[in-house]
Protein backbone atom coordinates (compact mmCIF):
# COMPACT_ATOMS: atom_id res chain seq x y z
CA UNK A 1 0.00 0.00 0.00
CA UNK A 2 2.71 2.42 0.88
CA UNK A 3 5.30 3.92 -1.38
CA UNK A 4 8.56 4.26 0.44
CA UNK A 5 10.72 7.31 0.10
CA UNK A 6 13.78 5.97 -1.75
CA UNK A 7 16.17 8.02 0.32
CA UNK A 8 14.86 7.29 3.80
CA UNK A 9 12.97 4.03 3.31
CA UNK A 10 10.00 5.52 5.17
CA UNK A 11 6.50 6.12 3.91
CA UNK A 12 5.60 9.70 2.92
CA UNK A 13 5.51 11.65 6.16
CA UNK A 14 7.00 8.78 8.21
CA UNK A 15 3.68 7.29 9.43
CA UNK A 16 2.15 4.25 7.74
CA UNK A 17 -1.15 4.71 5.93
CA UNK A 18 -3.22 2.84 8.53
CA UNK A 19 -1.99 5.17 11.27
CA UNK A 20 -2.70 8.20 9.10
CA UNK A 21 -6.27 7.02 8.49
CA UNK A 22 -6.82 6.56 12.23
CA UNK A 23 -5.49 10.06 12.95
CA UNK A 24 -7.47 11.53 10.06
CA UNK A 25 -10.71 10.06 11.40
CA UNK A 26 -9.95 11.57 14.81
CA UNK A 27 -9.26 14.95 13.19
CA UNK A 28 -12.60 14.89 11.34
CA UNK A 29 -14.54 14.19 14.56
CA UNK A 30 -12.49 16.82 16.38
CA UNK A 31 -13.51 19.41 13.78
CA UNK A 32 -17.18 18.38 14.01
CA UNK A 33 -17.12 18.77 17.83
CA UNK A 34 -15.01 21.92 18.39
CA UNK A 35 -12.98 21.85 21.60
CA UNK A 36 -13.76 18.21 22.45
CA UNK A 37 -10.73 15.97 23.00
CA UNK A 38 -10.88 12.93 20.70
CA UNK A 39 -8.87 9.95 21.97
CA UNK A 40 -6.50 8.48 19.39
CA UNK A 41 -3.92 5.70 19.31
CA UNK A 42 -0.80 7.87 19.33
CA UNK A 43 2.30 6.08 18.06
CA UNK A 44 5.84 6.02 19.28
CA UNK A 45 7.68 8.63 17.28
CA UNK A 46 11.42 8.92 16.69
CA UNK A 47 11.61 11.69 19.31
CA UNK A 48 10.83 11.78 23.00
CA UNK A 49 7.50 12.75 24.48
CA UNK A 50 7.48 16.44 25.20
CA UNK A 51 9.18 17.23 21.91
CA UNK A 52 5.98 17.49 19.96
CA UNK A 53 5.04 13.90 19.12
CA UNK A 54 1.34 14.83 19.05
CA UNK A 55 1.83 17.78 16.74
CA UNK A 56 4.15 15.74 14.52
CA UNK A 57 1.55 12.99 14.12
CA UNK A 58 -1.19 15.47 13.23
CA UNK A 59 1.12 17.20 10.75
CA UNK A 60 2.14 13.86 9.21
CA UNK A 61 -1.52 12.88 8.78
CA UNK A 62 -2.59 16.06 7.01
CA UNK A 63 0.54 16.88 5.01
CA UNK A 64 0.44 16.57 1.21
CA UNK A 65 3.22 16.93 -1.30
CA UNK A 66 2.12 20.48 -2.25
CA UNK A 67 2.12 21.79 1.31
CA UNK A 68 4.62 24.35 2.56
CA UNK A 69 5.58 23.68 6.16
CA UNK A 70 6.71 26.10 8.85
CA UNK A 71 7.65 24.94 12.35
CA UNK A 72 8.10 27.24 15.33
CA UNK A 73 9.12 26.67 18.89
CA UNK A 74 8.20 29.54 21.25
CA UNK A 75 7.83 31.73 18.18
CA UNK A 76 11.27 30.91 16.86
CA UNK A 77 12.05 29.11 13.61
CA UNK A 78 15.62 28.36 14.58
CA UNK A 79 15.55 26.59 17.94
CA UNK A 80 16.39 22.89 18.19
CA UNK A 81 12.82 21.58 18.28
CA UNK A 82 11.72 23.66 15.29
CA UNK A 83 14.80 22.88 13.22
CA UNK A 84 14.58 19.12 13.92
CA UNK A 85 10.89 18.81 13.11
CA UNK A 86 11.25 20.90 9.95
CA UNK A 87 14.17 18.74 8.84
CA UNK A 88 12.23 15.58 9.74
CA UNK A 89 9.42 16.45 7.33
CA UNK A 90 11.71 17.86 4.66
CA UNK A 91 13.41 14.45 4.73
CA UNK A 92 10.50 12.02 5.20
CA UNK A 93 7.88 13.90 3.18
CA UNK A 94 10.09 15.95 0.89
CA UNK A 95 7.79 18.96 1.34
CA UNK A 96 8.80 22.56 0.88
CA UNK A 97 9.66 24.29 4.14
CA UNK A 98 9.68 27.97 5.00
CA UNK A 99 10.13 30.28 7.93
CA UNK A 100 7.72 32.88 6.54
CA UNK A 101 4.31 32.73 8.15
CA UNK A 102 2.49 34.03 5.08
CA UNK A 103 4.06 31.43 2.73
CA UNK A 104 3.18 28.43 4.87
CA UNK A 105 0.10 26.24 4.36
CA UNK A 106 0.77 24.18 7.49
CA UNK A 107 2.38 25.71 10.59
CA UNK A 108 3.33 23.44 13.46
CA UNK A 109 3.83 25.36 16.66
CA UNK A 110 5.03 24.89 20.16
CA UNK A 111 3.65 27.52 22.54
CA UNK A 112 3.08 30.52 20.27
CA UNK A 113 0.73 31.80 17.58
CA UNK A 114 2.55 33.84 14.90
CA UNK A 115 2.22 37.63 15.08
CA UNK A 116 1.36 37.95 11.37
CA UNK A 117 -2.38 37.38 10.89
CA UNK A 118 -3.17 33.86 9.66
CA UNK A 119 -5.30 33.44 6.58
CA UNK A 120 -7.99 31.23 5.16
CA UNK A 121 -6.58 27.90 3.99
CA UNK A 122 -3.77 27.72 6.53
CA UNK A 123 -3.65 25.03 9.22
CA UNK A 124 -2.05 25.73 12.59
CA UNK A 125 -0.97 22.53 14.39
CA UNK A 126 -0.27 22.90 18.11
CA UNK A 127 1.97 20.62 20.13
CA UNK A 128 0.11 19.94 23.35
CA UNK A 129 1.65 18.49 26.54
CA UNK A 130 -1.49 18.23 28.70
CA UNK A 131 -4.73 18.55 26.74
CA UNK A 132 -7.11 18.37 29.71
CA UNK A 133 -7.74 21.87 31.12
CA UNK A 134 -9.23 20.37 34.28
CA UNK A 135 -6.39 17.89 34.92
CA UNK A 136 -4.70 19.79 37.75
CA UNK A 137 -8.08 20.33 39.40
CA UNK A 138 -9.33 16.75 38.96
CA UNK A 139 -6.75 14.03 38.27
CA UNK A 140 -9.21 11.28 37.29
CA UNK A 141 -9.91 10.99 33.56
CA UNK A 142 -13.26 9.28 34.31
CA UNK A 143 -14.31 12.39 36.25
CA UNK A 144 -13.05 15.05 33.83
CA UNK A 145 -14.83 13.23 31.01
CA UNK A 146 -18.08 13.47 32.98
CA UNK A 147 -17.47 17.13 33.72
CA UNK A 148 -17.07 17.83 29.99
CA UNK A 149 -20.14 15.72 29.18
CA UNK A 150 -22.17 17.80 31.63
CA UNK A 151 -20.47 21.07 30.65
CA UNK A 152 -19.73 21.43 34.37
CA UNK A 153 -16.90 23.92 34.50
CA UNK A 154 -17.45 25.38 37.96
CA UNK A 155 -14.09 24.00 39.12
CA UNK A 156 -12.26 26.12 36.58
CA UNK A 157 -14.09 29.26 37.64
CA UNK A 158 -13.22 28.50 41.26
CA UNK A 159 -9.58 28.16 40.27
CA UNK A 160 -9.61 31.55 38.51
CA UNK A 161 -11.48 33.05 41.47
CA UNK A 162 -8.84 31.72 43.87
CA UNK A 163 -6.25 33.51 41.74
CA UNK A 164 -8.14 36.74 42.34
CA UNK A 165 -8.58 36.06 46.05
CA UNK A 166 -4.87 35.40 46.47
CA UNK A 167 -3.26 37.80 44.01
CA UNK A 168 -5.95 40.40 43.33
CA UNK A 169 -6.06 39.42 39.66
CA UNK A 170 -6.21 36.27 37.53
CA UNK A 171 -2.62 35.09 37.76
CA UNK A 172 -2.84 32.42 35.05
CA UNK A 173 -0.53 33.64 32.30
CA UNK A 174 -0.20 30.69 29.94
CA UNK A 175 -2.40 27.70 29.02
CA UNK A 176 -5.21 30.10 29.90
CA UNK A 177 -8.51 28.18 29.58
CA UNK A 178 -10.91 29.08 26.77
CA UNK A 179 -14.50 28.20 25.95
CA UNK A 180 -14.93 27.06 22.36
CA UNK A 181 -18.12 27.80 20.42
CA UNK A 182 -20.03 28.22 23.67
CA UNK A 183 -19.61 24.61 24.76
CA UNK A 184 -16.31 22.91 25.60
CA UNK A 185 -13.65 24.41 27.84
CA UNK A 186 -10.31 23.77 26.19
CA UNK A 187 -6.63 24.08 26.99
CA UNK A 188 -5.04 26.25 24.28
CA UNK A 189 -1.68 24.50 25.03
CA UNK A 190 0.95 26.49 26.93
CA UNK A 191 0.78 29.55 24.71
CA UNK A 192 1.03 32.83 26.63
CA UNK A 193 -2.45 34.24 27.23
CA UNK A 194 -1.23 37.09 25.02
CA UNK A 195 -2.07 34.80 22.08
CA UNK A 196 -5.58 33.82 23.22
CA UNK A 197 -7.36 36.63 21.34
CA UNK A 198 -5.75 35.41 18.10
CA UNK A 199 -7.61 32.09 18.44
CA UNK A 200 -10.99 33.81 18.33
CA UNK A 201 -12.56 34.05 14.86
CA UNK A 202 -9.21 32.93 13.38
CA UNK A 203 -9.43 32.34 9.61
CA UNK A 204 -7.07 29.33 9.85
CA UNK A 205 -8.03 25.84 11.03
CA UNK A 206 -6.45 25.08 14.42
CA UNK A 207 -5.58 21.47 15.24
CA UNK A 208 -4.13 20.28 18.55
CA UNK A 209 -2.17 17.07 19.04
CA UNK A 210 -1.13 15.57 22.38
CA UNK A 211 1.07 12.51 21.80
CA UNK A 212 1.72 11.25 25.32
CA UNK A 213 -1.87 11.90 26.41
CA UNK A 214 -3.24 10.57 23.09
CA UNK A 215 -5.75 13.31 22.34
CA UNK A 216 -6.60 15.40 19.29
CA UNK A 217 -8.85 18.44 19.32
CA UNK A 218 -9.69 21.25 16.96
CA UNK A 219 -11.03 24.75 16.51
CA UNK A 220 -12.52 25.30 13.05
CA UNK A 221 -11.94 28.64 11.31
CA UNK A 222 -14.11 31.59 12.40
CA UNK A 223 -15.11 29.97 15.67
CA UNK A 224 -15.84 31.87 18.88
CA UNK A 225 -13.02 31.25 21.35
CA UNK A 226 -13.61 33.04 24.64
CA UNK A 227 -11.05 33.27 27.43
CA UNK A 228 -12.79 32.53 30.73
CA UNK A 229 -13.14 35.52 33.03
CA UNK A 230 -15.49 37.38 35.36
CA UNK A 231 -17.56 40.51 34.73
CA UNK A 232 -15.59 42.43 37.35
CA UNK A 233 -12.28 40.83 36.36
CA UNK A 234 -12.33 40.79 32.56
CA UNK A 235 -9.69 38.85 30.63
CA UNK A 236 -6.60 40.93 29.88
CA UNK A 237 -3.41 40.09 28.00
CA UNK A 238 0.12 40.88 29.05
CA UNK A 239 1.48 44.26 27.98
CA UNK A 240 5.08 45.28 27.58
CA UNK A 241 6.40 48.67 28.57
CA UNK A 242 8.89 48.87 25.72
CA UNK A 243 9.12 47.90 22.04
CA UNK A 244 11.28 45.11 20.58
CA UNK A 245 14.93 46.13 20.86
CA UNK A 246 15.73 44.82 17.38
CA UNK A 247 12.78 45.89 15.22
CA UNK A 248 10.94 48.39 17.41
CA UNK A 249 7.65 46.46 17.18
CA UNK A 250 5.00 47.28 19.77
CA UNK A 251 2.02 45.15 20.69
CA UNK A 252 3.94 41.91 20.13
CA UNK A 253 5.07 39.24 22.57
CA UNK A 254 8.64 39.81 23.78
CA UNK A 255 11.30 37.44 25.07
CA UNK A 256 13.85 38.58 27.62
CA UNK A 257 17.36 37.77 26.43
CA UNK A 258 20.25 37.84 28.88
CA UNK A 259 23.38 39.21 27.31
CA UNK A 260 26.15 38.87 29.86
CA UNK A 261 26.93 37.96 33.44
CA UNK A 262 26.49 41.54 34.60
CA UNK A 263 22.70 41.57 34.25
CA UNK A 264 22.67 42.99 30.73
CA UNK A 265 19.49 42.10 28.93
CA UNK A 266 17.29 43.01 26.01
CA UNK A 267 13.67 42.39 25.09
CA UNK A 268 13.09 41.12 21.57
CA UNK A 269 10.22 39.69 19.50
CA UNK A 270 9.55 36.07 20.34
CA UNK A 271 8.33 35.62 16.73
CA UNK A 272 11.66 35.58 14.85
CA UNK A 273 10.06 35.63 11.41
CA UNK A 274 7.98 38.68 12.27
CA UNK A 275 11.06 40.45 13.65
CA UNK A 276 13.23 39.63 10.63
CA UNK A 277 10.56 40.75 8.22
CA UNK A 278 10.18 44.08 10.02
CA UNK A 279 13.92 44.66 10.03
CA UNK A 280 14.05 43.84 6.31
CA UNK A 281 11.42 46.54 5.84
CA UNK A 282 13.72 48.99 7.57
CA UNK A 283 12.25 49.07 11.08
CA UNK A 284 14.93 49.40 13.66
CA UNK A 285 14.81 49.15 17.43
CA UNK A 286 17.05 50.99 19.82
CA UNK A 287 19.29 47.97 20.11
CA UNK A 288 18.50 48.69 23.73
CA UNK A 289 20.94 46.77 25.79
CA UNK A 290 20.22 47.42 29.41
CA UNK A 291 22.69 46.94 32.13
CA UNK A 292 21.73 46.32 35.67
CA UNK A 293 22.61 48.99 38.15
CA UNK A 294 23.46 47.33 41.38
Amino acid at each position, binding site marked *: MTTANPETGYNFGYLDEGTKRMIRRAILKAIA*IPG*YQVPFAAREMPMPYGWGTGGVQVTAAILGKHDVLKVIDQGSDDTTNAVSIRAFFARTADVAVTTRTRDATVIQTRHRIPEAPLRDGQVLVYQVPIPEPLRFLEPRETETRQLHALAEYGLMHVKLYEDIARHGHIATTYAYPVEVAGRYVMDPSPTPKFDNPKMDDCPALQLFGAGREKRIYAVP*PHTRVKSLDFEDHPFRVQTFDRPCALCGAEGVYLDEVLLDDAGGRMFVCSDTDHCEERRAEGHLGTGGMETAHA
Partner: protein
Amino acid sequence: MSGRSMLARGFADPVHDAQGVFRAVMDALARPGTIQALATDLAPPAPLTSELAALALALADADAPLWLDAGLARNPAVAGFLRFHTGARIGEDPAEAAFALISDPAACPDFGAFAQGTPAYPDRSATLVLAVSDLSDREGWRLDGPGIRDSARLAASPLPADIASRLARNHAGFPEGIDLIFAAPGRLAALPRSTRIAGA
Protein backbone atom coordinates in the same frame (compact mmCIF):
# COMPACT_ATOMS: atom_id res chain seq x y z
CA MET B 1 -20.16 -8.80 -16.03
CA SER B 2 -19.66 -11.41 -13.38
CA GLY B 3 -18.49 -9.66 -10.22
CA ARG B 4 -15.70 -12.18 -9.87
CA SER B 5 -13.85 -11.85 -13.13
CA MET B 6 -12.71 -8.25 -12.83
CA LEU B 7 -12.06 -6.27 -9.71
CA ALA B 8 -11.94 -2.53 -10.35
CA ARG B 9 -8.66 -1.04 -9.21
CA GLY B 10 -8.18 1.18 -6.17
CA PHE B 11 -6.23 4.43 -5.93
CA ALA B 12 -3.52 4.74 -8.58
CA ASP B 13 -1.35 6.50 -5.98
CA PRO B 14 -2.62 5.22 -2.60
CA VAL B 15 -0.64 7.65 -0.45
CA HIS B 16 -1.32 10.92 -2.22
CA ASP B 17 -4.80 10.10 -3.51
CA ALA B 18 -5.95 9.24 0.02
CA GLN B 19 -4.34 12.42 1.35
CA GLY B 20 -6.08 14.52 -1.32
CA VAL B 21 -9.48 13.04 -0.50
CA PHE B 22 -8.91 13.49 3.23
CA ARG B 23 -7.91 17.15 2.84
CA ALA B 24 -11.04 17.82 0.76
CA VAL B 25 -13.18 16.26 3.51
CA MET B 26 -11.25 18.09 6.24
CA ASP B 27 -11.66 21.45 4.49
CA ALA B 28 -15.36 20.77 3.84
CA LEU B 29 -16.02 19.91 7.50
CA ALA B 30 -13.92 22.81 8.77
CA ARG B 31 -15.82 25.22 6.50
CA PRO B 32 -19.41 24.00 6.30
CA GLY B 33 -21.18 25.21 3.19
CA THR B 34 -18.05 25.45 1.06
CA ILE B 35 -17.76 23.14 -1.91
CA GLN B 36 -14.44 21.36 -2.28
CA ALA B 37 -13.13 19.79 -5.46
CA LEU B 38 -12.79 16.01 -5.31
CA ALA B 39 -10.99 14.59 -8.31
CA THR B 40 -10.99 10.83 -8.59
CA ASP B 41 -10.51 8.37 -11.41
CA LEU B 42 -11.94 5.36 -9.63
CA ALA B 43 -14.46 3.28 -11.57
CA PRO B 44 -16.19 1.19 -8.90
CA PRO B 45 -19.12 -1.15 -9.55
CA ALA B 46 -22.50 0.63 -9.83
CA PRO B 47 -24.33 2.07 -8.03
CA LEU B 48 -21.26 2.99 -5.95
CA THR B 49 -20.16 6.38 -7.29
CA SER B 50 -16.48 7.12 -7.70
CA GLU B 51 -16.77 9.82 -4.99
CA LEU B 52 -18.28 7.42 -2.44
CA ALA B 53 -15.60 4.91 -3.35
CA ALA B 54 -12.84 7.51 -2.94
CA LEU B 55 -14.09 8.49 0.53
CA ALA B 56 -14.35 4.87 1.61
CA LEU B 57 -10.86 4.02 0.34
CA ALA B 58 -9.38 7.10 2.01
CA LEU B 59 -10.98 6.69 5.44
CA ALA B 60 -12.37 3.20 6.09
CA ASP B 61 -10.36 0.19 7.24
CA ALA B 62 -10.51 -2.73 9.65
CA ASP B 63 -11.03 -0.26 12.52
CA ALA B 64 -13.75 1.75 10.77
CA PRO B 65 -16.66 -0.42 9.57
CA LEU B 66 -18.88 0.53 6.65
CA TRP B 67 -22.63 0.32 6.18
CA LEU B 68 -24.22 0.20 2.73
CA ASP B 69 -27.72 1.36 1.87
CA ALA B 70 -30.17 -0.98 0.13
CA GLY B 71 -29.13 0.08 -3.36
CA LEU B 72 -25.43 -0.60 -2.71
CA ALA B 73 -26.14 -3.83 -0.83
CA ARG B 74 -28.08 -5.20 -3.81
CA ASN B 75 -24.96 -5.51 -5.96
CA PRO B 76 -22.51 -7.89 -4.23
CA ALA B 77 -19.69 -6.51 -6.39
CA VAL B 78 -19.90 -3.25 -4.38
CA ALA B 79 -19.16 -4.99 -1.09
CA GLY B 80 -16.50 -7.08 -2.83
CA PHE B 81 -14.77 -3.95 -4.14
CA LEU B 82 -14.89 -2.19 -0.78
CA ARG B 83 -13.77 -5.22 1.22
CA PHE B 84 -10.81 -5.83 -1.04
CA HIS B 85 -9.57 -2.26 -1.11
CA THR B 86 -10.30 -1.15 2.46
CA GLY B 87 -10.34 -4.32 4.57
CA ALA B 88 -13.31 -2.79 6.36
CA ARG B 89 -16.08 -4.88 7.86
CA ILE B 90 -19.39 -4.23 6.11
CA GLY B 91 -22.13 -4.66 8.68
CA GLU B 92 -25.87 -5.12 8.52
CA ASP B 93 -26.52 -2.90 11.53
CA PRO B 94 -26.22 0.81 10.69
CA ALA B 95 -25.54 1.58 14.38
CA GLU B 96 -22.16 -0.19 14.14
CA ALA B 97 -20.84 1.76 11.17
CA ALA B 98 -18.20 4.47 11.29
CA PHE B 99 -19.10 5.46 7.74
CA ALA B 100 -22.46 4.89 6.04
CA LEU B 101 -22.42 5.00 2.26
CA ILE B 102 -25.74 6.09 0.84
CA SER B 103 -26.35 5.86 -2.89
CA ASP B 104 -30.02 6.84 -2.68
CA PRO B 105 -30.02 9.87 -0.35
CA ALA B 106 -33.77 10.51 -0.75
CA ALA B 107 -34.30 7.19 1.03
CA CYS B 108 -31.66 7.79 3.72
CA PRO B 109 -32.68 5.97 6.93
CA ASP B 110 -33.54 8.04 9.97
CA PHE B 111 -30.36 9.53 11.48
CA GLY B 112 -31.26 7.85 14.77
CA ALA B 113 -30.42 4.50 13.20
CA PHE B 114 -26.72 5.45 13.20
CA ALA B 115 -24.27 5.75 16.07
CA GLN B 116 -24.72 9.12 17.82
CA GLY B 117 -21.83 8.85 20.26
CA THR B 118 -22.35 9.21 24.00
CA PRO B 119 -22.23 12.30 26.22
CA ALA B 120 -18.73 11.29 27.36
CA TYR B 121 -17.57 10.13 23.91
CA PRO B 122 -19.50 12.06 21.24
CA ASP B 123 -16.79 11.15 18.71
CA ARG B 124 -17.99 7.54 18.65
CA SER B 125 -20.55 8.52 16.06
CA ALA B 126 -21.17 7.86 12.39
CA THR B 127 -20.33 9.91 9.35
CA LEU B 128 -22.92 9.61 6.58
CA VAL B 129 -21.67 9.96 3.02
CA LEU B 130 -24.53 10.74 0.65
CA ALA B 131 -24.19 10.50 -3.13
CA VAL B 132 -26.14 13.60 -4.16
CA SER B 133 -26.40 14.74 -7.75
CA ASP B 134 -26.58 18.50 -7.19
CA LEU B 135 -24.71 20.75 -4.81
CA SER B 136 -24.81 24.54 -4.61
CA ASP B 137 -23.46 27.16 -2.22
CA ARG B 138 -25.60 29.96 -3.66
CA GLU B 139 -29.02 28.81 -2.49
CA GLY B 140 -30.70 26.56 0.01
CA TRP B 141 -30.19 26.41 3.76
CA ARG B 142 -28.66 29.32 5.64
CA LEU B 143 -25.87 27.99 7.80
CA ASP B 144 -24.04 29.40 10.73
CA GLY B 145 -21.78 28.06 13.44
CA PRO B 146 -18.15 27.03 13.80
CA GLY B 147 -16.24 27.23 10.52
CA ILE B 148 -18.57 29.81 9.02
CA ARG B 149 -17.76 33.50 8.73
CA ASP B 150 -21.07 35.37 9.10
CA SER B 151 -23.21 32.90 7.16
CA ALA B 152 -23.09 30.41 4.33
CA ARG B 153 -25.60 28.68 2.10
CA LEU B 154 -25.86 25.15 0.91
CA ALA B 155 -28.30 23.18 -1.20
CA ALA B 156 -28.01 19.49 -1.99
CA SER B 157 -30.39 17.18 -3.79
CA PRO B 158 -31.99 14.75 -3.82
CA LEU B 159 -32.59 14.47 -0.05
CA PRO B 160 -35.46 13.19 2.11
CA ALA B 161 -38.48 15.50 2.30
CA ASP B 162 -38.05 15.96 6.06
CA ILE B 163 -34.31 16.69 5.89
CA ALA B 164 -34.66 20.13 7.52
CA SER B 165 -36.25 18.77 10.68
CA ARG B 166 -33.74 15.90 10.76
CA LEU B 167 -30.82 18.31 10.57
CA ALA B 168 -32.37 20.53 13.24
CA ARG B 169 -32.78 17.56 15.57
CA ASN B 170 -29.24 16.41 14.85
CA HIS B 171 -27.84 19.84 15.74
CA ALA B 172 -30.03 20.08 18.84
CA GLY B 173 -28.38 16.92 20.19
CA PHE B 174 -24.89 18.49 20.05
CA PRO B 175 -22.30 17.31 21.03
CA GLU B 176 -23.84 13.96 20.14
CA GLY B 177 -25.05 13.39 16.61
CA ILE B 178 -23.88 12.41 13.16
CA ASP B 179 -21.91 14.30 10.53
CA LEU B 180 -22.91 14.47 6.88
CA ILE B 181 -20.80 14.56 3.75
CA PHE B 182 -22.53 15.32 0.46
CA ALA B 183 -20.56 13.87 -2.43
CA ALA B 184 -21.62 15.07 -5.88
CA PRO B 185 -19.74 14.29 -9.10
CA GLY B 186 -16.30 15.86 -8.73
CA ARG B 187 -17.02 17.80 -5.53
CA LEU B 188 -18.20 17.57 -1.97
CA ALA B 189 -19.56 19.61 0.92
CA ALA B 190 -20.15 18.72 4.55
CA LEU B 191 -22.49 19.53 7.42
CA PRO B 192 -21.01 18.71 10.82
CA ARG B 193 -23.40 18.45 13.77
CA SER B 194 -22.12 21.83 15.00
CA THR B 195 -23.77 23.72 12.13
CA ARG B 196 -27.03 25.57 12.80
CA ILE B 197 -29.46 25.58 9.91
CA ALA B 198 -32.20 28.08 9.20
CA GLY B 199 -34.76 27.76 6.42
CA ALA B 200 -34.69 24.62 4.33
